[in-house]
């Protein structure tokens, strides 16, 4: 399909078009609504978008769906593979199912909503993206997370928030174990307000008082040999 022919509400069928053609068309259009059919677990689908696009994907996607997304709103009506919305800069990515490892890795901005569970390393090295997971997250989630927020309505796996920097973590369920330098922190008014805003943005009706906040103890920000045993 020629990019110039793409119109709002275009249907892009991966049974009829190659991944390259679909992505190129999305790159060539800075606005519009697109429905992608038959993704069949395709990797790198709708990655590198930069515009006011609304992209809806009917089915499961593979690795790196919506990777490095800017401004676009991408909805996956299904499950997502590894590296969902990795290094996302802005916009909204919404997955109605589960997400595999490293969802939102190194994300810089925008909002990532996962209706199901997220696997290990969700929000690893987060740099400003906000993530709301309505289910649970796997081990090492928010590892080395620098900025942004991770909200988990379910439980976390082991070593939650390990080697955390300044990202804010909110959990409603059980934390299996905290990682190095991650501690429970007081939920002050500004945190309650921020959490409420995130829950509202994700369409979650949960009550803020049900959550606990976790953050960095900042004891490992400077390497000191006395702390070597904590790593």
């Amino acid at each position, binding site marked *: 399909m020629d990019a110039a022919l793409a119109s709002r509400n275009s249907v892009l069928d991966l049974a009829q078009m190659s*991944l*390259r053609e679909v*992505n*190129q068309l999305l*790159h060539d259009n800075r606005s519009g609504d697109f429905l992608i059919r038959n993704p069949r677990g395709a*990797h*790198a689908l709708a*990655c*590198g978008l*930069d515009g006011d696009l609304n992209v809806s994907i009917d089915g499961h996607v*593979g*690795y*790196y769906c919506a*990777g*490095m997304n*800017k401004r676009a709103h991408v909805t996956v009506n299904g499950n997502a593979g*590894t*590296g969902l919305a*990795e*290094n996302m*800069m802005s916009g909204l990515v919404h997955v109605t199912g589960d997400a595999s*490892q*490293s969802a939102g*890795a*190194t994300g*810089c901005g925008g909002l990532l909503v996962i209706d199901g569970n997220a696997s290990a*390393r969700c929000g*690893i*090295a987060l*740099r*400003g993206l906000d993530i709301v997971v309505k289910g649970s997250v796997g081990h090492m989630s928010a*590892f*080395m997370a*620098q*900025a942004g927020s991770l909200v988990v309505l379910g439980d976390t796996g082991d070593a939650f928030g390990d080697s955390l*920097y*300044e990202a804010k973590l909110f959990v409603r369920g059980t934390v299996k174990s905290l990682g190095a330098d991650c501690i429970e922190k007081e939920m002050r008014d500004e945190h309650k307000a921020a959490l409420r805003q995130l829950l509202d943005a994700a369409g979650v009706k949960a009550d803020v008082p049900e959550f606990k906040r976790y953050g960095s103890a900042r004891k490992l*920000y*400077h*390497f000191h*040999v006395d702390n070597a045993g904590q790593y």
Partner: protein
Amino acid sequence: MSADDHRVTPPRASATFDAHAIAEIQRAAATGIYDIRGFGAKRKLPHFDDLLFLGASISRYPLEGYRERCGTDVTLGSRHAKKPITLQIPVTIAGMSFGSLSAPAKEALGRGASLAGTSTTTGDGGMTAEERAHSKTLVYQVLPSRYGMEPDQLRKADAIEIVVGQGAKPGGGGMLLGQKISKRVADMRTLPEGIDQRSPCRHPDWTGPDDLEIKIHELREITDWEKPIYVKVGAARPYYDTALAVKAGADVVVLDGMQGGTAATQDVFIEHVGIPTLAAIRPAVQALSDLDMHRKVQLIVSGGIRNGADVAKALALGADAVSIGTAALIALGDNDPRFEEEYRKLGTTAGSYDDWHEGRDPAGITTQDPELTKRLDPVAAGRRLANYLSVLTLEAQTIARACGKSHLHNLEPEDLVALTVESAAMAQVPLAGTNWIPGKT
């Protein structure tokens, strides 16, 4: 009393417990922490000095040194990229971050590389406006930390380099101590100012060769298949790493030997992990040949390149280009004897200064100190780098013509012999004066 009665056994230093080993034991006992430093391996290693070119003779005729052309250009990324890059010389500038280096130093690298017709490379922390503006051809690194990683910068780059490891520390992550985390550096990396920044050693969203293939595919899709994609590995298992990088879809493999520099790492890591550059090249070339990819996937070799002879030897062993880091910094002005008084105040001497992580570089290169960075004139330093790159090229051409080659890429292992059994085995060329290649003949 005879003179013999006064003879005593003179002090005898231990070869095992030499002065450096004893000093390190004493330092460790006093501080309780390992030594961190910059630079690459400093120990004596088998290297290009252990190889010689044979030159032309009755069976081969040379080219006229000042009359006959010897080509130096190299094209990188022709396997998959829509826009492969062509460099005028096969010597590139290795990735070094803004943060580890000052902004004027990054600018100078871009200026020097552009004058010489070659590329320079970003590093941890992303792309600065200065280096993009002054680098005609800029390679953008995708590192495990992803500090500063932005899709717009990917698109502005001329090529992309996925860094799996580096020769100074295969299996190790980056390190930038708090002294050098200025506000600008902190902002680029989304980190608190002044903290010790220790980068991860693994990528956050892929963990093996099959994942790497998908990661490369994603980067190609994001950049519409325009950019060449390099994969950089520290020399450890060069045959398998090269083969896996090719399998994953790399256009270019960058192979960094243990003499390759770093901004900061534990001394024990630098000196004891990885293999020498000389030992790494032939296995990597063998992997490319076995896959019928030699010269189709380009090989860039780095780690201890100092002069045109090193360039020529690396190319003769099968590399398509070399990359320099430490040598480039020295060309800019690092370890310059004119700062000797200040080096001595830092407890070192010009030529040995390697505490690049401390941010007190008198030459204004490995620092973020505003006063020290002013000392480096990026225009003059860039000129020095261009001069040096020109000399490297002229020297390599001199050798190639003497071997009868009309292009640097026509140099071949047959042009080389080795001075030691070890180097003969590693480079897989005959020991000089014999036809013996250890392990082969």
